């Protein structure tokens, strides 16, 4: 249970960190002057990409394939 | 001398510089986190959480 909790929290951290990185590093939506649509869509896209990547990577932990 | 483009930003903040009160504070934080992590991981084992 403890290990599972730690694993889940790490997964959450990695997900958030990766979306933030994409948001700031790739979409550069954190800059002043970026309008809200840009911020919104960048946020969604960054989270989606991050989720896909980590779902794939973490999937290895429990999937049988 | 030019600022080191790798370590120093426009405001003159050099992330590789480490001295004075700032250094002491960083050391303190390092110690605090290290003690915390070691203590938590050790105690949790003694409590049989993993």
């Amino acid at each position, binding site marked *: 249970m403890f290990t599972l909790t*730690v*694993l889940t929290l*790490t*997964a959450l951290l*990695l997900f958030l*960190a*990766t979306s*933030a*990185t994409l948001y*700031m*590093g790739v979409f550069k939506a954190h800059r002043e002057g970026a309008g809200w649509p840009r911020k919104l869509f960048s946020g969604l896209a960054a989270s989606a990409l991050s989720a896909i990547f980590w779902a794939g*990577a*973490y999937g*290895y*932990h429990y999937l049988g394939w | *001398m030019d*600022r080191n*483009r*790798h*370590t*120093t*930003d*426009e*405001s*003159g*903040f*050099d*992330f*590789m*510089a*480490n*001295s*004075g*009160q*700032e*250094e*002491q*504070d*960083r*050391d*303190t*934080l*390092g*110690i605090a*986190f*290290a*003690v915390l*992590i*070691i203590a938590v*991981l*050790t105690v*949790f*084992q*003694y409590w049989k959480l*993993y």
Partner: protein
Amino acid sequence: MSTANTATFTDYDRTRTSFFSALYRFQRVLPGLLAMLMISIFSNNLAGAPNPFTLENLFHWLDGVIGPVNHQPVFGILNSNFVWNPLLLGLIIGNAFGVPDTWKPGLSYIHMLMPLGIIMLAPHFMLWHATKLGVVPIAIIVASLFFTATATLLIAKWFKLDDRHGSIIAGGLSTGDPHVCAILMPLIKAKGGQVVNALVCVLVFGLVAMMALPYLGAWLDIPQSCFGLASVVGVGNGHQALSAAFARGYEAGRYALWYDIGRHVIMPAGFIYVFIVMFIRKLRYRNDPSVKATGHLNSFPLWLGVFIFFWILTTLHVFKEPAHHAIFNMVKWDFSLAASALGLSLSFKDIARPGLKGLAVTFVAGSLRIAVLLAALVVCIKTGLLPVAP
């Protein structure tokens, strides 16, 4: 140069409220932290981060393609590990793309991460584990450590090498562990370029020693089990020592694994010794401009005291097996993050700047060590002090 720095320095003192101020504001450090995190998770397979696209995995694949050398992976021999990989990746990114200003506040966390990681290393060194080796091998390992450290420092002085650079080499060479180069960095107050340069010196010497030692061993007719000890002490550096030993034979390789524990557990003694020697020297020659090692340190660093405290707890077996593994996983995270910041901070020029003098010092000191070691081994074997496995 100094105006801007002083400004920051005074800024910090002015705005400081508690020691937590060294963490700065979250928004300010976030980009840098993210950069470190990304470099780390794409460098190593870290606990909890199952990213398949890591430098470590790439090297592993390349190891498989190249094939082993004396049963050891090539990138293992080149010391690819949780410090070296992110450092390399940081170095490449920093030199190819530069380091954005927004990253820099976050990257300054390296100074917190270094003591943090070093303290967490303490549970790794259980002194008792070496006792199974027997008295003479332990004596040889310990003597070699202090002899090499002292000799390297003296030779570095003789070669008029920057004392910070010399100290780092002394640490890395005497313990046979390039990690020590990084560990000594905050203690000696060495420049990043010097540390990486020293690391390269130790590795290059290791490669040469790895290739030469089996011939010396065969020439001196050192039995395989003793040759295991010779390669652990004479070459060090994990896979390099194993490769040297396996080049002699399977039995030597097996005993290199056996003796390695002795070198490993006394490693902290090496960097503490080098630090204390340089620290006392600094206190003695406070006004000598050539004495740069340990920089502006005025008192024994508290965190090193904490490390020693935990080292004592380790020896008392407070940290049991799974906790020790968990803590070591945290060390990997910590050093990966710190090394990525270090890699970003360096240009290739910085690494080349200390020149080849360091390499000369390493080779002279290392060769001297091997000569003395082999002589000592031959004497011990002839007198029957060193047990020879049948």
